[in-house]
């Protein structure tokens, strides 16, 4: 049977373009058709930029016709989480407060993608301002899991991941603050990676928690992910946290003989038994590939989520103060009595519950008299968590864990219970806290839903976990 064009991988699509089997417009139309027929059910997209996509595709086709050499991502349709700016396109962050906001410039990653010839299909749904683990808190309605539409896709980058999982695009960018790409990738059965903090410029990504945020790709294969990461990473003057790594091309390291750490703190009570089985089987597979498993301990793991729920909301409360109803976005200014009234009413009506909850939590943690007990304390424990990883990586090349303690849950199940919802990020937040890279790869099914295996690497050593993930993926 002939494979539908939109189901190809980036690599396959690139080959087809080079050999002129089909055109970039063909690929783009296949994706747009899939969006039209499926997205009423999935709700992965907030905005579809059909005209922009077809214009970009035609440009690439012209180049192919004139015999130009194609770059790996050239002419391949993709999607962007709706908190990443594309000039002249709407960018909502899934919030009423930015319902009609039009971006005035391209994010650095978008600039790079455009230079690489990418075809931008549109902007994907997310939890409001990327705050959530289920893509249910979006002002534009929840995204559904393509595997089972009664289930959540995970979040906050649920739209980007669902779009990839349902072949509406070849790859997508999301953003991570505590697992927002790896966790949905696990729940939807695709690849998701958070690069090291400092790898990818966040210029033009709406800030959530600045010491944790990182733009993160999601793809159908590990090989595809490597290509996307190669395109978007690198130092950027406009993001002073990006690191200039003039590194020698890393040596390709085989999994054979590699030491992989299994942290005992990641296999705990409360984890779904079937999920644990799949992850244990995945670990066996790594052993069969020649890796040596080493029992390790990351003793401060149990404090990671608590650190996260102090550091993140504190930074959120500061970053979201810019939405004041005056310069852009939703406003109540015309009905307000005075300036204070503009702030209170605009932010009451413009922000959803989760955004307000986190702003208040952060404001409390940073307020006079509480700073030392909360923010400073959390930052100190953050140091201990980072030290745990530093120590572990003197003994092992990378670490293997589950990505999520459960499979996808029912829509609505955890929505009114924030603390239970927060616990679904328990295995992913540590990587953001320590700034290290992490990747989630599918490792089978439990309860007929996908399970993800997570690999964590040393800071700035994406190469090792990409190699392990790639060999793991190819092993049958």
């Amino acid at each position, binding site marked *: 049977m002939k494979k539908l064009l939109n189901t190809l991988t980036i690599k396959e699509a690139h080959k087809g373009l080079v050999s002129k089997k089909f055109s970039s417009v063909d690929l783009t139309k296949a994706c747009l058709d899939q969006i039209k027929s499926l997205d009423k059910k999935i709700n992965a997209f907030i905005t579809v930029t059909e005209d922009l996509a077809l214009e970009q595709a035609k440009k690439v086709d012209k180049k192919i016709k004139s015999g130009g050499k194609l770059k790996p991502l050239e002419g391949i349709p993709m999607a962007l989480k709706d908190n990443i700016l594309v000039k002249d396109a709407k960018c909502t962050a899934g919030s009423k407060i930015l319902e*009609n906001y039009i971006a*005035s*410039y391209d994010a650095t990653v978008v600039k790079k993608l455009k230079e690489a010839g990418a075809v931008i299909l549109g902007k994907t749904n997310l939890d409001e301002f990327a705050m959530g683990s289920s893509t249910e808190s979006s002002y534009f309605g929840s995204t559904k899991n393509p595997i089972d539409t009664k289930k959540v896709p995970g979040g906050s980058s649920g739209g980007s991941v669902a779009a990839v999982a349902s072949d509406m695009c070849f790859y997508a960018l999301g953003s991570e603050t505590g697992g927002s790409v790896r966790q949905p990738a696990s729940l939807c059965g695709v690849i998701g990676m958070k690069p090291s*903090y*400092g790898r990818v410029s966040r210029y033009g990504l709406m800030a959530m928690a600045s*010491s944790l945020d990182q733009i993160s790709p999601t793809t159908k294969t590990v090989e595809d992910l490597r290509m996307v990461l190669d395109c978007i990473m690198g130092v950027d*003057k406009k993001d*002073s*946290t990006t*690191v200039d790594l003039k590194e020698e091309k890393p040596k390709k390291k085989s999994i054979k003989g590699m030491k992989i750490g299994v942290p005992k703190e990641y296999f705990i009570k409360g984890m779904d038994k079937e999920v644990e089985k799949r992850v244990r089987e995945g670990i066996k597979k790594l052993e069969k590939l020649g890796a040596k498993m080493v029992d390790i301990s990351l003793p*401060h793991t*149990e*404090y990671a*989520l*608590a*650190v996260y*729920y*102090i550091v993140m909301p504190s930074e959120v*409360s500061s970053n979201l103060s810019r939405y*004041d*109803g*005056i*310069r*852009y976005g939703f*406003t109540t*200014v*015309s009905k*307000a009595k*005075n*300036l*204070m*009234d*503009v702030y*209170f*009413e605009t*932010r*009451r009506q413009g*922000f959803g*519950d989760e955004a*307000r*909850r986190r702003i*208040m*939590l952060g*404001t*409390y943690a940073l*307020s006079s008299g509480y700073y030392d007990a*909360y923010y*400073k*304390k*959390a*930052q*100190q*424990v*953050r*140091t*201990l968590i*980072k030290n745990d990883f530093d120590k572990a990586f003197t003994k092992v090349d990378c670490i293997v864990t589950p990505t999520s303690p459960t499979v996808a849950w029912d829509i609505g199940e955890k929505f009114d219970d*924030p*603390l239970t919802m927060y616990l679904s990020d328990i295995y992913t937040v540590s990587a953001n806290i320590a*700034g290290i890279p992490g990747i989630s790869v599918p490792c089978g099914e439990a309860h007929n839903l996908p399970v993800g295996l997570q690999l964590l690497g040393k800071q700035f050593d994406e190469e090792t976990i990409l190699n392990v993930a790639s060999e793991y993926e190819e092993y049958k």
Partner: protein
Amino acid sequence: MKLKTQEVEHIAKLARLGLTEDEKKKFQDQISSILGYVEKLQKVDTKNVEPTAQVTGLINAIREDEVEACDKETMKKLVDVAPMKKDNLVKTKAIFE
């Protein structure tokens, strides 16, 4: 640990967030339960531990403070997204009363 109603009102005021009476009660419960959860950090011995504010190891990342030219069209668009404007300026309520 349970936040008092006045504390919720005080935080909301600091954060410039309007709340209805129902919301006050809801957020009071939810934020209290999250604060209860993070309480576990107090058990960790952090004597002589330096706080981590960022993880890159970069120190003083600086660049020239150069003005980048902005074309007329972009300028107009920037003002156009403002809810209230006058000519090419963003308009707001009086700051001094």
